[in-house]
């Protein structure tokens, strides 16, 4: 049955008025909003927006974290046939200018003073922006800018309107068709201006339902909404699937309490990019290092048991009686309490996506009894393309195409997707649309990959990034930077990697160490350091990283496709790559080209055999000021291995 988001809300409010729809932790207590209350709130906001002049088909910007009223405003805009555009709350002002102007946005709803200031700052560059509503009034009492209004005030005026015209809202919601545009998401874009990805109610709901059916989600699921609402993944998990299934979305108290809230909520359906899982594991490991020797001994013993037995159990295979018994004891003593501490006691399905995940990390979670799986999708495909079935989760694939998805591999190795969830178009950008959508409905993912023997999709890299080594011993070999970067990033000591090699005679990398992990490693070795830059240049740290790189090289030599991508030289950067400096995208992906231009002298030094290189760079602080950092960086050489010839 085809429907729209506001219609789903009305349906839930009518069928289960008192069931909780959302919870928000405020003043230390989880406060529930029932479906009926939420329905009323949305109606009032919608009426208020209507009175302020929001028109059908018009766009409205939302900037803020996961707050019930932000999602309510999204629903309210959709009720009027307007199109919400969620923007990243941590984006700097300048990054908001393009979306606002691109979509001629007159209306914005933001979370708090910080966001209000941000939008007021760019107001001169965004002449269309007229109305600015804010959720949290703190600090805004003395603001008198035109068009600025508290959401509370909007709700009040909407309430009066709704009471005077009782049937108006329902009639307005009924006007929408499932094929109307429902929302627009700006892709972070590693190059050029971001593109507005246009989705209809149908495309989003089709995929939301397909994903829900695949994992048999019910209205009893509990979800924690903690990733930016501007990211389509969060939007699918805490909006599209929320309304499709009618489960409960929990909003954390603040960004810093997410881990505490996670434990309190105990979600049954969970999603996180690999770096979140990695962060949790690092915390556990650091705490175990500090634990008493008995505790540590028990932990270490049962973790080896878990590694041997856990994954097989998760895959539904039977293990011997003794192993089963050992695992049961381990579950009682270690895995159970650990799951509880991590907030995963009740989790039925946990997904990771967005980046490749390290095999050790992946195995760790599965071995302690968490049903962790991978999925493949993007903003343009409304997320769900491939998912891993419960018993077939593996670290190096991204799953099988689910219901409603067709997949094929183009001649250049590019994955092509066809489904009912594909984007309608890129907003005001027919050229870009034509580039990714073929006339017969196939979408170019621009990911290179293949389908393996068991029918699982395996991704190698972005098509445009896959290059060739030119000259040297491996002339003509395939070079997949992302593949190399990921393999290195699987080491806990390495946070970010940028690999170069296309059109050159060998592969070289920039490395960002993980400050927490390496810092802890250094402390345990009584190695003093003053800060990130100092730690990064320690010879001991270079030796540590060198070992990691050489392990990856040893691993790569047996890869028939990518043996030529082995890394021969590396350096550790003196600063952490940062989205504020344009080095990462807002979703924390490295912008290889930009970094290459910015650190050109470093690349030159890697390839002309120098052993160290001086570099000075400008850094931007969060408050907009900038400063500069400089350092002389050492360059490390690594052992590479001759490729093992296949079928030799």
């Amino acid at each position, binding site marked *: 049955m085809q429907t729209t988001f506001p219609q789903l809300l009305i349906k839930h409010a009518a069928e289960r008025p008192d069931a909780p729809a959302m919870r928000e932790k405020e003043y*230390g207590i989880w406060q529930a909003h029932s479906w009926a209350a939420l329905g009323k709130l949305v109606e009032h906001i919608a009426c208020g927006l209507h009175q302020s002049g929001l028109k059908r088909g018009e766009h409205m910007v939302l900037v803020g974290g996961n707050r019930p009223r932000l999602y309510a405003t999204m629903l309210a805009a959709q009720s009027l046939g307007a199109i919400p555009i969620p923007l990243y709350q941590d984006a700097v002002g300048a990054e908001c200018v393009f979306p606002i102007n691109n979509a001629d946005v007159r209306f914005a709803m933001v979370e708090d003073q910080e966001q209000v200031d941000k939008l007021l700052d760019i107001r001169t560059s965004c002449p269309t922006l007229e109305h600015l509503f804010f959720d949290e009034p703190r600090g805004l009492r003395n603001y008198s800018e035109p068009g600025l209004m508290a959401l509370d005030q909007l709700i009040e005026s909407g309430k009066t309107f709704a009471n005077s015209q009782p049937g108006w809202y329902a009639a307005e919601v009924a006007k929408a068709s499932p094929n109307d545009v429902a929302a627009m998401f700006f892709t972070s874009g590693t190059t050029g201006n971001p593109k507005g990805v246009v989705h209809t109610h149908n495309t989003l709901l089709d995929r939301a339902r397909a994903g829900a059916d695949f994992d048999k989600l019910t209205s009893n699921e509990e979800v924690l909404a903690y990733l930016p609402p501007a990211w389509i993944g969060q939007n699918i998990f805490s909006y599209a699937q929320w309304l499709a299934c009618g489960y409960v979305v929990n909003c954390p108290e603040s960004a*810093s309490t997410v881990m505490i809230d996670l434990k309190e909520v105990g979600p049954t359906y969970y999603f996180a990019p690999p770096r979140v899982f990695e962060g949790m594991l690092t915390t556990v490991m650091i705490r175990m290092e500090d634990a008493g020797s008995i505790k540590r001994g028990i932990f270490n013993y049962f973790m080896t048991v878990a590694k041997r037995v856990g994954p097989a159990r998760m895959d539904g295979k039977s293990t011997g009686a003794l192993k089963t018994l050992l695992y049961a004891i381990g579950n009682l003593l270690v895995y159970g309490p650990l799951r509880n501490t991590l907030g995963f006691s009740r989790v039925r399905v946990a997904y990771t996506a967005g980046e490749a995940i390290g095999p050790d990390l992946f195995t760790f979670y599965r071995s302690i009894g968490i049903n962790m799986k991978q999925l493949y999708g993007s903003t343009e495909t409304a997320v769900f393309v491939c998912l891993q079935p419960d018993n077939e989760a593996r670290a190096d694939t991204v799953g099988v195409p689910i219901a409603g998805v067709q997949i094929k591999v183009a001649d250049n190795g590019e994955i092509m997707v066809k489904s009912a969830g594909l984007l309608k178009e890129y907003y005001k950008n027919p050229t870009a649309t034509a580039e990714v959508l073929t006339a017969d409905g196939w979408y170019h993912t621009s990911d290179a990959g293949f389908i393996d023997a068991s029918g699982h999709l395996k991704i190698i890299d972005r098509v445009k990034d896959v290059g060739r080594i030119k000259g040297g011993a491996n002339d003509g070999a395939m070079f997949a930077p992302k593949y190399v970067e990921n393999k290195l990033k699987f080491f806990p000591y390495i946070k970010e990697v940028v690999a170069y090699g296309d059109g050159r005679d060998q592969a070289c990398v920039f490395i960002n160490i993980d400050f927490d992990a390496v810092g802890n490693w250094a402390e345990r070795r009584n190695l003093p350091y003053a800060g990130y830059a100092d730690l990064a240049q320690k010879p001991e740290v270079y030796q540590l990283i060198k070992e990691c790189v050489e392990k990856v090289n040893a691993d790569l030599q047996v890869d028939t496709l990518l043996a030529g991508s082995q890394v021969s030289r590396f350096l550790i950067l003196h600063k952490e790559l940062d989205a504020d400096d344009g080095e990462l995208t807002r979703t924390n992906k490295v912008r290889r080209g930009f970094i290459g231009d910015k650190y050109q002298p470093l690349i030159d030094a890697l390839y002309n055999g120098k052993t160290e290189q001086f570099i000075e760079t400008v850094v931007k602080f969060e408050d907009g000021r900038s400063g500069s950092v400089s350092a002389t960086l050492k360059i490390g050489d690594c052992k590479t291995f001759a490729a093992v010839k296949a079928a030799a």
Partner: protein
Amino acid sequence: MTKKIGDVILDVQNISLAFGGVKALQDVSFNVKEHEIRAIIGPNGAGKSSMLNCINGVYQPQQGSITFKGKTFKHMNSHQVAVMGVARTFQNLALFKGMSVLDNIMAGRNLKIKSNLLLQALRIGPAEKEEIMHREAVEKIIDFLEIQAYRKTPVGMLPYGLQKRVDLARALAMEPQVLLLDEPMAGMNVEEKQDMCRFVLDVNDEFGTTVVLIEHDMGVVMDISDRVVVLDYGKKIGDGTPTEVRSNPDVIKAYLGTSH
């Protein structure tokens, strides 16, 4: 931004304080108006903390008087001062290190808790209702100062900047009319200082709390305070708006020294 500054709420007249032969304060007079942020500055040993301690009733000056909300006192009594609505934070922190953040802030509600020890210990009758009411007030402060993530953390485990924030939270728990802050930004990095400034301004703005603060960071003082008193060797050498004080020759001399 417009701010409504009211009448004089605290008037300090001719205060002199000596410890034996050491004259900590000599004939110092100044006043504080309602809703303003009043800074006390001066070099080390100028008598800033002594001044605060006189207002707060920790020290009893030998001469002078203090008028608070129309009532004049020879010297203050620290309990009475707290009841009248003056709260303070400490330069070197005076938190209960082993207690959680929440308990520390709850301690700030002590004066407002009416039920007796027995009822509280057994948490029966009105005591339970009262505790819930006070917890709500404390939660609002926790939310205000953005320390939700540390509710249950023992204070001793927190970094210094956060301990300072807990100290402020405990003072706010008294719902004071006048807040005395003794070097709230001391020992903090730039980012922590910015946060603290924000909180002080927000407290002043949201609750209308009058703030008297001692601070060494001139940038901070000039940015956030409405009027500044300058002390040097126990004497008042300047009083006025930040701009006036900055151009006062005596102040320049005390801070920068002069060439002879």
